[in-house]
């Protein structure tokens, strides 16, 4: 058991190192530039207004940059290893496919966590630099963003075990986009009354509702997100992530590496 955990950690550490060396965290530079520009440009607005806009921009950028990394790196995590055959010598070692798969997931998850943490720090520093108080409430928006990104990585990995890297990107982006507009699907009958309710229900059920992870505007406006809500979001994310990751793992386990 301990050995399995150590092997999974070894794969995760290597995945993190890969992300750093492949300059994945360069997006932080763009984020820093964005925050600096936002801070400078918004100085002319009223204090209340620019604080909200600054938080909105910061949280939005965290979500966007994180999603781009989760989709593009997530789909390449396994498919690149298969394509380049770099996983062959690893899987011949006492490393199970499950340990490899989960290690990859954990490694990218950690990369995204570091990425979000640095961006959050950047946002807080920008707030301080422009004379505002750092707001710990931002964490209640960043945490659900992180959960959503983990689910995105799980989808990216699932699709990359089933199809090519390019198609996996398309499918993952599709799921994320549809998931962000899941409430529109639920209300589909209002705009298209002809659509049978079972189809609407099925569509709503097979796509996770990514809007559940979006607390950006509420937090930017200073609303408090309760621990109960965050707990529910955690359970929702955990259930979906476990299911999708489980499907990905089953597909990866069944694969032949020709």
């Amino acid at each position, binding site marked *: 058991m301990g*050995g399995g955990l*150590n*092997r999974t950690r*070894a794969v995760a550490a*290597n995945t993190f*190192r*890969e992300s750093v*060396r*492949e300059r994945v965290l360069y997006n932080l530079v763009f984020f820093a530039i964005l925050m600096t520009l936002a801070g400078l440009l918004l100085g002319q607005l009223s204090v209340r207004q620019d604080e909200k806009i600054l938080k909105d921009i910061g949280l939005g950028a965290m979500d966007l940059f994180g999603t781009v990394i989760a989709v593009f790196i997530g789909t390449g995590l396994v498919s690149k290893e298969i394509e*380049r*055959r*770099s996983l*062959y*010598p*690893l*899987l*011949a*070692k*006492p*490393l*199970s496919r499950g340990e490899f798969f989960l290690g990859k997931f954990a490694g990218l998850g950690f990369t995204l966590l570091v990425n979000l943490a640095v961006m959050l720090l950047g946002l807080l520093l920008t707030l301080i630099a422009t004379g505002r108080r750092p707001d710990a409430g931002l964490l209640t928006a960043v945490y659900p963003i992180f959960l959503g990104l983990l689910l995105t990585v799980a989808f990216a990995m699932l699709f990359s075990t089933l199809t090519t890297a390019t198609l996996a990107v398309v499918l993952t982006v599709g799921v994320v986009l549809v998931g962000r507009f899941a409430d529109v699907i639920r209300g589909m009958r209002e705009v298209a009354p002809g659509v049978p309710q079972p189809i609407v229900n099925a569509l709503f059920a097979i796509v996770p509702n990514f809007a559940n992870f979006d607390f950006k505007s509420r937090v930017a406006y200073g609303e408090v997100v309760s621990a109960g809500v965050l707990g529910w979001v955690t359970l929702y994310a955990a259930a979906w992530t476990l299911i999708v990751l489980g499907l990905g793992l089953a597909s990866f386990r069944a694969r*032949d*590496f*020709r």
Partner: protein
Amino acid sequence: MVQPEVGPAVGGASREPALVTKGLSKSYRTGHIIQGRRPALVDLDLEVRRGEILGYVGPNGSGKTTTLKLLTGLLRPDRGEAWVLGEPLASRAWRFRAGYLPEHPYLYDYLTPLEYLDYAGRLFGLARDKRRQRSRELLALVGLERSATLPMRRFSKGMLQRAGLAQALVNDPELLILDEPMSGLDPIGRRLVRDLILRQRQAGKTVLFSTHILSDAETLSDRVAVLRAGRLLKVGALGELLRLDVTHLEVLAAGVEPGAPGLEGLRAERVGDRLRLEVEEGSLGRVVTAIETAGGRVLGVQPVRRTLEDYFFEEMGGAPAGAAARGAGAWGEG
């Protein structure tokens, strides 16, 4: 499931085979719309003995890589069983005691070989100090100590092959499974890998390596297994397979013409101003006398043995031009 028989230890060495396969088979799906299956390996019964080097030879597409991938878990067999180091194939336990080098290893561009070996060592649960020490030793062994801290994206194909070999040895394995280990190497690299494989045997390790370069199999192997179209043709010691007796002698002479008195009927080939003659062992004295009588000189006499290449082509149903005329040891790299 029947376990392979474990024989009594002889001279301190266990006779338990390092690897046994029974009826191991694999086919690949073909076509997208109308699907069929193409057999890649059919009912492989193979035994690799402890402490031996077994060369696994066959032309491209004969099923060598498929076999090694089945053994290392990269492919799932359709049917059949295998035991590695006394453990069932599906067991994880034997993997702690085995090493594998895939064909054309593609390692991680962004890692240095030192980091890569450390990563491989972690997967075996080696302690940090042990990993560090072992990595340094292995890089020296494969001649990469000067490139230890270079990212592998800068490596040539040969250097990658060496790094791949080092990772296969990181756990000091009892069994080494090598897929075309000499592929892509320059002559120095080939020599290094050959020496390394021979050193493994000296240390009592078992090596199973695939190759389509017959001279490598001939130089290194205690036994060879010949594969064709997914079926095992024959397994045996090289001596048994090749019948290593001298088949004839090759006499190199100068200053004599073909068909000179006493040389009639002999197979002769001009090599510049020299003549190469194929001579039966019993008639060597008579032929040497005939050459000297005709005013010529004997420059050399070389025994000619049947080579693995000769055997291979006979089994494959065709002989390469001039194969029989080549002397032992004067064989191309295939």
